[in-house]
């Protein structure tokens, strides 16, 4: 039987929810407020911030750019990380600690340093200041998210034995990967993709420093507006948040079958 939570537990959970939700609600309210600096609640409401933002010629272009950038990063990240982590788990266990260590680096190196270093090193065509270089940089920058998620879900299932079982049944390496391994670790790939997508969609530093105006992203437009009009910036934030949220739901929905199988795996444990 479930126990009733105590008062202190309820208060703690409530505090946590408020801590997380208040800034988001405030941003939503601010984006539709006419003036909100003299009163507790806004003095009036209008959708002007949104209409002005949508009229900006760069609005849809930057939205599209950010979506393309985020999805490409997710795709490249999946292609690089999944087979690598799989091989390390099955064949090269000794490399796992090295890989774990490498995956902390993106957290340790500031985005500014990474961006400037990449711009210096890849200062030749067609890479120099291109969207391609930006995607590559974003892949590196967000790799820990993908790596951790995939690695954890690989560790949760006995991947070596599943591989051997499939091989003994006549499966070649392609079938092992596509029919056994990927479906087994799909939940991890999904959560990794979500984290990477959301991070890249809102990422500003790398995009600004590597390509700049050549491939304007949504966060760049947002930052421009913070200097002009707070309400419009808030409206853009809300849009950014909503788009990321919808995209996440979409990814979850597409991978619905996989999510069920995570629960299966958890239950089996």
């Amino acid at each position, binding site marked *: 039987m479930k126990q009733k939570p105590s008062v202190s537990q309820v208060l703690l959970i409530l505090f946590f929810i408020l801590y997380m939700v208040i800034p988001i609600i405030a941003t939503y309210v601010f984006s539709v407020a006419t003036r909100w600096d003299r009163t507790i609640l806004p003095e009036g409401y209008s959708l002007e911030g949104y209409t002005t933002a949508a009229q900006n010629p760069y609005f849809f272009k930057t939205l599209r750019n950010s979506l393309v950038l985020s999805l490409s990063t997710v795709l490249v990240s999946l292609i690089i990380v999944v087979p690598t982590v799989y091989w390390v788990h099955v064949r090269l266990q000794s490399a796992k600690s090295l890989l774990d260590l490498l995956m902390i680096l993106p957290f340790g190196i500031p985005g500014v340093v990474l961006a400037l270093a990449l711009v210096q090193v890849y200062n030749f065509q067609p890479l120099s200041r291109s969207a391609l270089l930006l995607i590559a940089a974003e892949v590196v920058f967000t790799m820990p998210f993908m790596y951790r998620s995939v690695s954890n879900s690989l560790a949760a299932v006995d991947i070596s034995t599943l591989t051997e*079982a499939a091989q003994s*049944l006549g499966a070649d390496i392609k079938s092992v990967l596509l029919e056994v391994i990927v479906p087994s670790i799909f939940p991890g790939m999904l959560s990794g993709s979500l984290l990477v997508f959301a991070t890249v969609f809102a990422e500003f530093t790398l995009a600004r420093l590597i390509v700049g105006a050549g491939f304007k992203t949504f966060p760049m437009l947002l930052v421009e507006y913070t200097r002009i009009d707070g309400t419009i910036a808030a409206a853009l934030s809300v849009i950014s948040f909503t788009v990321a949220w919808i995209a996440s739901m979409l990814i979850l929905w597409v991978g619905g079958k996989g999510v069920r199988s995570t629960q299966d795996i958890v239950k089996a444990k």
Partner: protein
Amino acid sequence: MAYLDLTNISKAFNTVVAVKDFNLSIEKGQLVSFLGPSGCGKTTTLRMIAGFELPDSGTIMLNGEDISLVPPNKRGIGMVFQAYALFPNMTIRENVMFGLRMAKKPKPYIEKKVDEVLDLVRLSNTAKRYPHQLSGGQQQRIALARALAIEPRVLLLDEPLSALDAEVRVALRGEIRRIQTELGITTVYVTHDQEEALSISDRVVVMNSGLIEQIGTAQEIYRSPNTRFVATFIGTANEFHGIVTGENTVLCDDLTLTSDRIRSFINGTRVVALVRPENVQVFDSKPAGDQLNLFEGVIETLTFHGAITRLGISASGKHITADVNLTGRAMLSHHQKVWLCFQPEYCQVMSE
């Protein structure tokens, strides 16, 4: 040439020798067990037959074909793992048909075969479920069905019952033997459980530290162990350390043991004489007649095991274990004085 031939197989991991000079021939339709403590090389040998490890030297011939270097997915060898290894994302039916799909068999054949093997393991009703919805014993039966569906040339079982509870283990090993005999499939069974190995195998290979200690039928292994390791690893045995004093006598401190199974040891050789507890007879009073290997002792421990009672008896400073059936005889008690005796044919002598 036998159906499956392993010749001079050796395998080392870095500097640790896992298997050394392994030679074994298995006839078609036989069930052979590899039995030994963990780390004895039994699983490594099995994995070399499966193709998951490559031997450093030696050859593996299957039906006249050298398969030593053939990749595992091309060997046509089915394997059942200790951890079941069912694919968690597939239903039972999908699991069983996996191998047949990989072999690109026609659909009607696949359907028929899946029904057939699910019937064979008596789990047709679970086809639509997922592995986690089945008990451990059921999962292992499905793993067996999945391995059998591809009609493998050899079936390998790697400690298939270790993760199950005692009752299921006994039931399932009978099931495995029934199916194996029914299909006449050549099978190699790895286990560290002697009872399991002795009860289901045509032949048992006892291994220790990467070497074969003895190959033989269950009875041969139990009744005539070649080495001290085999004698003590399979079942229990009383050990008497002493020196050979005559054609068929061993002096062990104060006890003179007579054996008609002394191999050609010269007088003065240090040896160990082994007697199984069930071959030690226990009497309340000194039996009449001239008996060999008759000693006086005192009961120190008494443990009830159901069918038998195990006695720990101290005789001339030696601790001797005897298994007796107490049905229909006077009760024995602690500190009781008894006489114990064993026939010379049950006393096996081997070098120390």
